[in-house]
């Protein structure tokens, strides 16, 4: 299995994702520079967290127009799995591979902490090793993580089982008190209509190592690797 990590000049979770992937796949991921439109043939594309182009305009807005992204869109449309984490999620909404947008946190501050999230669907290549309703602990670290979409889009997401993760309380309840950033319906991750693109604000690569407080994220990478290698 081959994976590519898209590296923008301001990516800063590229190495972290590489480490997490390397635990689960045999060949080292390709670190693909954003300006190079010639993306090799891969089985998985990851857009990591960071501040792709400084994000002075709008998080992910400039990166959505970088040369490699056209190719990423093309591959996604052909069914290649694409995972966007944090800034990667923001880029995926900016380039419209995923619906909605990520607005500034309602508290107007950067938030870095562990949050509880609930797996809303396990019918995806990304979440299939979790059980539906399973509660996970994962770190978030973002300034713009408040998921927003119009009512019609939200209904479409809900009706088609495209909401992958929601922020929840310690005992698994999805409620306003458990919402760290003001995301509508407590949405922490969404799938594309074809279910091969996932954007998520929590950082699974930051909880893939028991020395660093948890391994709830490791399951995502191992499940993904497993699904790709044994479809």
């Amino acid at each position, binding site marked *: 299995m081959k994976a590519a990590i898209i590296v923008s*000049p*301001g*990516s*800063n*979770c590229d*190495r*972290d994702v590489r*480490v*997490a992937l390397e635990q689960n796949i045999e060949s080292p991921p390709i670190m693909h520079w954003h300006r190079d439109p010639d993306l090799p043939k891969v089985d998985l594309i990851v857009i990591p*967290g*960071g*501040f792709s*182009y*400084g*994000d*002075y305009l709008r998080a992910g807005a400039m990166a959505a127009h970088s040369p490699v992204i056209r190719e990423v869109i093309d591959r996604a449309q052909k069914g290649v799995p694409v995972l966007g984490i944090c800034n990667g999620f923001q880029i995926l909404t900016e380039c419209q591979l995923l619906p909605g947008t990520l607005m500034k946190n309602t508290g107007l*501050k*950067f*938030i*870095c*902490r562990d949050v509880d999230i609930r797996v809303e669907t396990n019918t995806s290549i990304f979440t299939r090793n979790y059980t539906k309703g399973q509660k996970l602990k994962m*770190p978030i*670290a973002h*300034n713009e993580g408040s998921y927003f979409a119009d009512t019609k889009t939200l209904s479409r997401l809900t009706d088609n089982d495209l909401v992958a993760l929601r922020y929840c309380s310690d005992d698994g309840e999805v409620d306003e008190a458990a919402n760290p950033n003001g995301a509508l319906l407590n949405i922490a991750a969404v799938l594309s209509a074809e279910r091969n693109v996932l954007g998520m604000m929590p*950082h699974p*690569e*930051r909880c893939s*190592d028991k*020395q*660093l*407080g948890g391994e709830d994220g490791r399951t995502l990478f191992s499940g993904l690797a497993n699904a790709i290698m044994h479809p």
Partner: protein
Amino acid sequence: MTEITPQIVAEHGLNEKEYKQVLKIMGRKPNITELGIFSVMWSEHCSYKSSKYWLKKLPTDAPWVICGPGENAGVIDIGDGKACVFKMESHNHPSFIEPYQGAATGVGGILRDVFTMGARPVANMNALRFGSPNHPKTKYLLGGVVSGIGGYGNCMGIPTVGGELEFDSSYNGNILVNAMTVGIADADKIFYSAAAGIGNAVVYVGSKTGRDGIHGATMASEEFAEDTEEKRPTVQVGDPFTEKLLLEACLELMATDAIVAIQDMGAAGLTSSSVEMSDKGDVGISLDLDSVPMREEGMTPYEVMLSESQERMLMVLKPGSEQKAQAIFDKWELDFAVIGKVTDTKRLTLKWKGHTVSDIPVRPLVAEAPEYKRPYRPTPLLAPISPQEAVSLIKIDPIEALLSLLGSPDLCSRRWIWEQYDHMVMGDTVQRPGGDAAVIRIHGTSRALAITTDCTPRYCIADPIEGGRQAVAEAWRNLTAVGALPLAITDNMNFGNPEKPEIMGQFAGCIQGIAEACRYLDFPVVSGNVSLYNETNGVGIMPTPAIGGVGLIEDITKSTTSFNFKSPGDTIILIGETLGHLGRSLLLRLIGEGERGSPPPVNLSAERRNGDFVRMLIQTNKVSACHDISDGGLLVTVAEMAIAGKIGANLFKLETNTPDLAWFFGEDQARYVISTSDAAPILDAAKVSGVNASVIGSTGGTMLSVENGNSISISDLHNQHDTWLENFMSEA
């Protein structure tokens, strides 16, 4: 051409005697550009003219020191072919004038100091001090500083893993923002700043030069008065994205064999970088200022030389490597310009539109900079206050006192701050903020660095020598408490106006105390920074020698621990001697009638003995949790362990004459609380080592109770501890 009048000279912060020295060095009247260069190079900030005499007294050597003070940052050997590069630096004055940009560029500056030497930064820390919570500017300054630090570090993708926060009215007009960066490099690939190779290209990389920050170094060398608002233009503006590009481009170039010397453009920008590089290499540098990438039109040579625009570097390249270097900087979309060359003249020669606009002999500019042994008056010592006398002033139940302390600005959780810092990026943060020391794994290994910053200014003002000792001892203790072997420190000396003998007395005293403790604990000073003139309208800050310490953990899978209680039924052991010293304690500050008496004495041999013992216990996996005892004393320490572990504790008091409040809240030094499932061998080993170790209770339940006293639930303690700062900052 501007006429150099006595008034112009004075505006450049040079006194009559200093100006005479300029005339002697130049052999003629300087022009305005040259005067500007002397002015910034001889500012307190760049020349250390008031502090140099004293700084020489600090111990800076140890077998593991690769590079001590004098370069961009200190470098120590951490084994396995790796070196740790670190330094702490102040950005106090700019942060008071413009908190967001002042703090952000403080972080940017210290990051550059570390990656200039070839290290990848792996952690940031910060020691922050603000005025009283009641002061009208405190909230605005704290909010701005924290978001500035976060904004810069988060974008760079370097975790900000801890630090200190303190409120005191002595900082009302002068906040302190001390930023520390720790990086890791290959021990045989450290980059230095000495220019070499006559004819080699001098290259400018990074952002373009603008008019921001002109005379920042001079501004940082003056007191504040009513006109601070007018100094806003002297504060630089940060661009962390460009710095991220600069970091990656520099590290990429450093992996090749192209660089002879490199220096970041920090305070005094192009001036200090070119002067230091030529002085250290004992060569000359000639610069063609027209080639400097400029952001604005119509800039003068004076402005180009004095600009403190951020995110810039100066390098000397090996012959023929310009193209290779340029390709790397093009990839990262950064400016790259050959702006001059190394010469054999030992002079700094500047050309502008075909004319020579400055020609200064470098060695005298540096070596003949003023150095003052300013008059100093040692701080008169205060009489100690006995535990009995101290508690006679206070009538309060220990649990009630604990609640007030934990919910106070001095001791409440700093969660509101660290949640705004990305403290996990880079995937190696083993101990997150809130512990005794941050623990950062050395990437790809199971070894780790422990990092802390410490200082107790209320001790320093009462007795600078004892306060200096204590700051070092506490840093050493915090590293020990996570199982690390303490290796070296960086010191950030924040003081008032050095022209006042009592301030110089504080400075000299703190240096003496730091030097003694460093020497005794094998904990040398490898880098540092001095910030003087922290005064407003003649009122100075408390003396604040912030210490940043670094230590090494051999194996995070077995030789480290954290401070949270791990399981019920563990025995709680107090290490060290408890005499109930309440002088200068938080109990007196918050509940009594203010700090009184003398600070707790630091017994360096007890520090060493107890610390070595505790470290041995942690390294041999004999303790389940460990926490050093500092501000607030024993009961606060146990409460913090209980809150973090969500496990209660039952405590009893040993048979002593010490009054209860002094026992629970005394701030005697050299002490730790540990928990263990197997106490007997520890008590036996302590006896053999001559260490005071006593069982004082056990973990379990949901309450913290003291013998013959009250109890309180851990969740109540948690709520009290957790909320003060957040509530304070969210109140309009």
